[in-house]
């Protein structure tokens, strides 16, 4: 059993008058993949956006309760969001490379955080990130080309490389394969397996099969509540809750 990396206690999220999360208590283990499943609009994405405070971007969003990373209160008003996001990277549903070259897409993050002061250091960061995201072999000869010229799957791996480039501890993935074909999906899943040796990963997914394949722990959300959480094997073979059972067998959702 790995250490607990992130711990949420009685986490509530409101969008204006609407409550999106209700008293979520969820622990995420270090260097493990946690999958979050549940029907659309159930609060999975809202939960992971609490971990890197991306909800700050939305004016009407209010977060109460407690969420900690290594004992540090993420929800603290005085917390430096920039350094939090340096430690917690994120990959989005749709690949969103910047309209810049492949190289600049990766070097963007390190430059912002003042890493890689010399050109060779920066080159090294870019190369390492692309290698870790299994994209290096495909793009090493065309780093000057725009990131948007890559295929969808390559773009998503580029976005993973971008997240890795600032050397985070946690990577949040919000349905990273929903816009990709099965082959590209398989590559990303392979990559996730590899990445969990170094990073703590949280992945939101609509694919039960994907959750089974990549994760060690699974949480099932429904209508803003965490219904059940446990080892992936247990959740999918022998869930405690009837609702979980119904969802994973496709009876609703």
């Amino acid at each position, binding site marked *: 059993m790995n250490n607990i990396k992130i711990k949420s206690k009685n986490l509530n999220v409101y969008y204006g008058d609407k409550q999106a999360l209700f008293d979520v208590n969820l622990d995420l283990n270090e260097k493990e993949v946690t999958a979050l499943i549940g029907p659309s609009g159930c609060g999975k994405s809202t939960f992971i956006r609490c971990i890197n405070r991306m909800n700050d971007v939305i004016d009407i969003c209010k977060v109460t309760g407690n969420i900690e990373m290594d004992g540090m209160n993420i929800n603290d008003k005085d917390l430096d969001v920039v350094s939090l*996001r340096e430690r917690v990277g994120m990959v989005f549903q749709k690949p969103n490379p910047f309209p810049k070259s492949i190289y600049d897409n990766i070097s963007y993050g390190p430059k912002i955080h003042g890493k890689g002061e010399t050109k060779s250091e920066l080159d090294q960061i870019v190369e390492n990130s692309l290698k870790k995201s299994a994209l290096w072999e495909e793009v090493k000869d065309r780093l000057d080309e725009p990131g948007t010229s890559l295929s969808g799957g390559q773009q998503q791996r580029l976005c993973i490389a971008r997240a890795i480039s600032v050397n985070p501890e946690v990577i949040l993935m919000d349905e990273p394969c929903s816009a990709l074909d099965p082959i590209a999906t398989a590559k990303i899943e392979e990559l996730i397996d590899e990445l969990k040796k170094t990073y703590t990963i949280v992945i939101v997914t609509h694919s039960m099969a994907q959750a089974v394949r990549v994760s060690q722990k699974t949480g099932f959300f429904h209508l803003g509540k965490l219904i059940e959480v446990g080892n992936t094997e247990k959740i999918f073979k022998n869930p405690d809750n009837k609702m979980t059972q119904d969802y994973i067998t496709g009876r609703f959702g």
Partner: protein
Amino acid sequence: MNFVLLFLITIFSLSLFFYGRSKTKSISIEKNIRLNALPKFYGYYLVLWCSIPALVFLLVWSLFEPVIIKSIIIETAANQGAIFNDKNEANLIYEKIKAIHLGTYFGDIDSILKESALAYAKFINIFTNSKVVLIFGIIIASVIYSLKKIKNNNKARDDVEVILKGLLFVSSLIAILTTLGIIFSLLFESIKFFSVINIFDYLFGTNWSPQRAFVRDASSITVAELEELKDAFGFIPLIAGTSFIAFIAMLVAVPIGLFSGIYMAEYASIKVRRISKPIIEILAGIPTVVYGFFAALTVGPFFRQVGENFGLTVSSESALAAGLIMGIMIIPYVSSLSDDVINSVPQSLRDGSYAVGATKSETIKQVVIPAALPGIIGSVLLAVSRAIGETMIVVMAAGLAANLTINPLESTTTITTQIVMILVGDQEFDSPKTQSAFALGLTLFIATLILNYIAQRAVKKYREKYD
């Protein structure tokens, strides 16, 4: 007469609409058949058939009637023994005959004129009568035809669609043809101008003083005079003045407009945005003549006063005042367009940037602005083309003398100002001075056309990237 005819056509058409509608309704009930279209379509069908052929005929007739009558009358007058040497004299006689007919001619009337006037009256009469008869003939024929059609339960809906499509097509054709007409008239007048003044003298000359060509018309110009005119139409001071004032305007409009666009798109709350965006756009709705007297009466003298305090000579009509006010006028164009393009940068790009820990201003500077850049460039180019085409402010505030200067405190002039100056007052149409206005217009048109083309290409390219 034409108004009476138009009125009658309208009345007929309207009554046919109601007739057609109720008639087809009763047919369908009587024979217990399903109509091929709603009853109102049969009404429309009759209206269109009753009015369009008659209206087209009336239009064509009205275009050709005067021409035909004129040629007939001039020929009759000639047969009567009237003598005229050229077209102008023939026209004069025709106008006299018309005036006699209308009873507004007070000169001597000889027998030739009298006879011709009688002939004129006769022809007018014949033409009017035949026009009325023909129109009614056409209406009756087309109404009979269309009534027969609707009694056979034709597909009136499809037919109405086809006719309406035709109407819309003709309207757009008119819009395009008039634009082309304007361009060609510019082109032909400019060609006349360039047949007197060498195009290179025009394009590269540094002296603009068209008043020198005022007295002479192009047809009777002598070689010596032509030589003298050679350097009267130098375009360089005008394009220099125009660009200079536009440049000052852009210095004001681009930073302020762009920054306010960024504020509106990225920072302003929905509430602030909803109030302040229309306020900025009001600036674009102020008539330019208001900006003009503001520039001429307030800002110009103010700069002069300030300049005097510093011991500078400032012309009260300065490029600076005109450019500054023009810049203020253009701010809303830049801000509103760049606001739109910044807004259409997908939120996912901003999220991606925030997620690696970038702050808001870093995100705007390094991700949003580069992504929106083609669109922003497009909006700036549109603003430039607005600036060089702007007339009223510069006429009122920039001055008239074609100074080749880069001192913003001196007065300078623009292409548009010169066109206004040339065409204000009495003009001889074939003087090179008047024709030079067309050449200036053409040059201005080409310049703004190129700018607009590039701007639209830039904006389009930008859209394709994110759609």
